[in-house]
């Protein structure tokens, strides 16, 4: 099936989006496909900030490109622009005003892509052998973080930045005034960090982060917990046979975590090809999706939390042998307004 064909079906009508998709497992959730998805694994997704009218989605991929779509209200997506790196794009994010996109790539550079002029400027060039997954981009200012340890992932919500490093290291930075290291934390997770996402309190200030592990577990960690023993916790996710102890449990990596900008609930996506919605406060699972035929490598919410975007593509979790370049990559859009509403605490 061609991407354009699917898009054309979307074009016929917003209602048809869910109905027209085929029944194969690439889109079991019957979500809206984004037109002209990247040709290789999608490494990152980001919606435009609320300062921009409309919704624009950018996605970086291993095809060295960063693409930008406009997501219309009916779910239709219109490709808008594309910018190339010389290496796979690992992460991308928007500037606060939405005029620029920062991208980080395996080519050891970070670029600032001015969407107005469609010009990309290399703002950072890293000599390190590995640029890794870190997103060196701040909301308004760009922050380049250097670490003495291998960096797996990072997230920035001004004025806080969290970097998850190798050897279970966690470094918290404060970015006000002179960015400085605020705290080093022993990871609550045993295994390799794979994703981290900062969440905010009700005053909309960053108070903690959710840390995803390579082995199906997510830790919720408050920087200054009122009750550390109780507030911080971990939960299992993206595992098969979660309740059945008789058979070995398949553990999948948590590829991405995204917090709902309104409800404070979070979504996790894993190598198992599922996405799950959680209520960290109620410590309950809100929803788990059907399994896609490919891992989900990235996810994000738009600025008002109505759209949940997730990308279906191979995450290399099983190595080169399982990589099928012929397999299509998809970006899906899902209405997230209702499903992520928090529940009352059970207990």
């Amino acid at each position, binding site marked *: 099936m061609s991407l354009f064909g699917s898009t054309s079906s979307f074009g016929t009508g917003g209602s048809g989006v869910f109905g027209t998709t085929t029944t194969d497992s690439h889109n079991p959730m019957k979500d809206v496909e984004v037109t002209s998805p990247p040709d290789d694994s999608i490494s990152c997704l980001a919606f435009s900030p609320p300062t921009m009218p409309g919704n624009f989605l950018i996605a970086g991929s291993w095809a060295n490109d960063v693409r930008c779509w406009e997501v219309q209200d009916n779910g239709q997506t219109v490709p808008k622009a594309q910018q190339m790196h010389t290496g796979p794009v*690992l992460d991308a994010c928007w500037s606060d005003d939405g005029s620029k996109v920062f991208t980080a790539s395996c080519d050891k550079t970070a670029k600032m892509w001015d969407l107005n002029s469609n010009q990309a400027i290399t703002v950072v060039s890293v000599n390190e052998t590995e640029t*890794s997954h870190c997103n060196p981009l701040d909301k308004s200012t760009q922050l380049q973080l250097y670490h003495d340890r*291998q960096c797996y992932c990072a997230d920035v919500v001004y004025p806080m930045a969290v970097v998850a490093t190798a050897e279970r290291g966690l470094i918290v930075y404060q970015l006000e005034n002179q960015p400085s290291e605020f705290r080093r934390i022993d*990871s609550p*997770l045993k295994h390799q960090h794979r994703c981290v996402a900062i969440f905010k309190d009700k005053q909309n200030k960053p108070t903690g982060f959710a840390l995803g592990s390579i082995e199906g*577990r997510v830790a919720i960690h408050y920087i200054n917990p009122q009750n550390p023993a*109780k507030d911080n916790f*971990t939960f299992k996710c993206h595992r098969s046979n979660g309740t059945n102890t008789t058979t070995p*449990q398949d553990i999948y990596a948590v590829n991405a975590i995204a917090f709902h900008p309104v409800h404070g609930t979070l979504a996790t996506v894993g190598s198992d090809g599922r996405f799950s919605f959680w209520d960290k406060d109620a410590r309950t699972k809100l929803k788990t999706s059907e399994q896609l035929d490919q891992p989900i490598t990235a996810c994000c919410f738009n600025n008002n939390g109505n759209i949940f975007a997730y990308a279906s593509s191979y995450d*290399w979790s099983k190595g080169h042998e399982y990589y099928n370049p012929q397999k299509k990559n998809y970006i899906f859009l899902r209405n997230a307004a209702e499903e992520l509403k928090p529940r009352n605490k059970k207990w």
Partner: protein
Amino acid sequence: MDIASYLQSFESRLSSYVGDDPLDPWIKFVDFLEQRLPAGNTSEMCLVFDSLVQRFLNNERYSNDIRYVNYCIRCASYYWDPVAFYSEVFGKGVGTRTAALYVAWAQEFEQRGMKEQADAVYRKALENQAQPASTVLHEYSQFSSRTTVQPLGVQNPLQNLTNQMSSSKEPLEPSKMTWECPSKPPAPRMTIIVSRSEASGSLSSQSSSDQTVSEYIKDELLCDGSELSFEEVRAKKYFQQLQHKKREEENKLMERQLQEQEERIRRMKLSLEEAEVMEACGGLTEEFSHQDGFYWSLAKPGSGSAGPECVTETPVALLQTSVTQNGLPSSLWAADADAPAQHSATRCGGGHPAESEEKLDVSQGGAANLSHATPNSSLGFVQATPSRVLPSPTVNTREALGVVMDMFQAPTFLEEPVSDSSHLNASERDLEDGASGGGPLWSRLPEVAPFTIFQDHEEDKENVHLAEASADRKAVRCLAEVAAPKADKPNETSQYLMPDESTMWGARFNPLNSLAACPNNTSEFALLAHCVSTPFTHKPLSSFSEDQENICSEDDASIRRQTKRLSPIIEQSPNEDKASETAASLLEPSSVRQGTIVSAGLASTSITMLQPPPPAVLSFRDQTPAPADSSVRSGRGWEVHASPEPPLQLACLGSVKPKTRPFTILEDTSSSSGDLSQVPMSQESALQPGRFSARSPEASAEPDLDALLSPLRPVAPTKAADIPMSPEQPPLCADVPMSPQQSLVSTGDQPMMSPDREPRPHTAGGVYVVPDPWDNQLIAHLLSRLSPPLTSHQCCFAWSCNVPNISPKVTITMGESACECRMEKERKTTS
């Protein structure tokens, strides 16, 4: 009934339990078992505790239930590594706020001597506000005291209390722990936040709960004691592939390059083969070209030799033939050189030798300028020799070139001839030759020009001594030889070019005409000469055609100007093909031509026709402003003066006469003083014009030539400069006017005169060095002097009829014409 069976039956009955406290039956069960079992037989109780702990491990309700925590502590005692058990249980959130667990945990550490960890656990308990806090504080203080100093007995009871408090059912373990705690000072407080986390300890969970299989490439992530992220692994692969691709591409490129190289080699081989095949042809062609050049020179001398005759006889024909541009430029050059050449011619009168010499001369001319070879003497020889003696033409050409270069910025002339030559095949050949060989010479000449002036003087002096001059000529020749290759070529060409020489002569005549037209402005002369030359080169008729003439004149002017400027450049570029080549080549050929022409003209002049000198005169006039040339010529002029009169009689005589004339002129110019001496060029030119005029008359004498010449003639008259010269020196003037008037005889005389005139300039030139030949004032001054003769000469009428194109320039008053010439030059320069 062992404990396992009890446990099994108990668990089977658990399902039936209905109540809000699932732990309660377990408590009763444990109590039951402990009552039933013998006191020492506690080993099997681990099964019960283990299952109990596991059952409620994930139940937050009992996480901090003291009963459950105590069971955990008791369970831990059965483990080989209680610390791990504690950490795991703690990681599950069990006992995070229960003092008993922390105490037991810390005591376990303390028991193992791990004070710091124990201290950390206490502090963790404090931070997590473990209850009862008093227990934690008490135990911690006790621990601190133990670690620092010997434990205080007072605290023991409290410790017991805490033990009881913490583990209501198992007070033993804490108490045990307390005992063995070594004393250590409390470590500085560190904020280590331990929250429920996976990392706290999962041995039990893993072992007890579920078997898990990591659905990812765990092995591939291991790297140097750390782990790689998927992205890193993928990036590795990615870059590996990139490198692989690069290698492949490189290999491909290498292969391609190899193939290309092979192809190149093959091509080279083929080309070489072809080249081998072609070499004969190519060499021949080249030879031809060179030969052409030689022919030119040769032809020139030949023509010169014949030329004198032709000049006298067929100046018109020459003019017509001179239509060929080559002829014209050559004529110009010749004219320039002619003056000296005439002198020489008058002296030597050898035309043919001059040809060979002319070749040399051309080179020598440049060399002469450079070397200070006596151009005058050489010129004189040339004149005599161009047709007669080889050396003389060379000398003449040298001198002429030098003078032309200096005064007229020979390059222009050269260029003109080049352009003209371009039109003509022969001219082209010459150009090519000149470009190859002559170009440098020419370029040298122009550069030399300033020096040439001095040289000229010297040369002039030498010229005075013709024999000496000849010696100098030889030296010059050597120099010329150095530069000579071109000259050689010209020589070769000269033979072929014999007709061309005639054309050259004609060109000379044309320049004469032009000179006549614009006596004041040397540039105009040059232009005119070019025009004339061009038309000649093209073909006499066509060239004569007004359009062509106009074009040619324009082109010539532009070329002349360019050439003048180019002259320095020419040195560099002369060899260059096309424009540069053309210009340079033109110049060179022109030089060659000039040399040839000069020789020819000289010869002709010496013989009968003095026409070649006239162009020289024209050029000289232009040069007159430039003292250096004039000076050189002046010297010649002296000689010429001697000869000028003779010219009529003999070339030598004629040459002598011209010298005399130059003297007169010099006087005039000399009145211009040193300028004249230096300017002699101008004077010579003036004289030459007169000669030209004389020639022109000669040409006119010949019907065809007359038509052509007539225009030229008018030029001569227009060359008031000549006239003024003549006026100053009545004989000269007489000669000049005579020449125009007396076309035939006078012409012959005049050419002679012109060379003579050149010598005259020497006389004057020695005195005067004109810094700026183009100086308006100087020119105006000279022109003003000259003007009257022009006006006096009514020959202008004839001009208009014959050569309309030339006429416009000619028609302009002397001053104006000069201005125009300047303007043109400026335009050229600007352009």
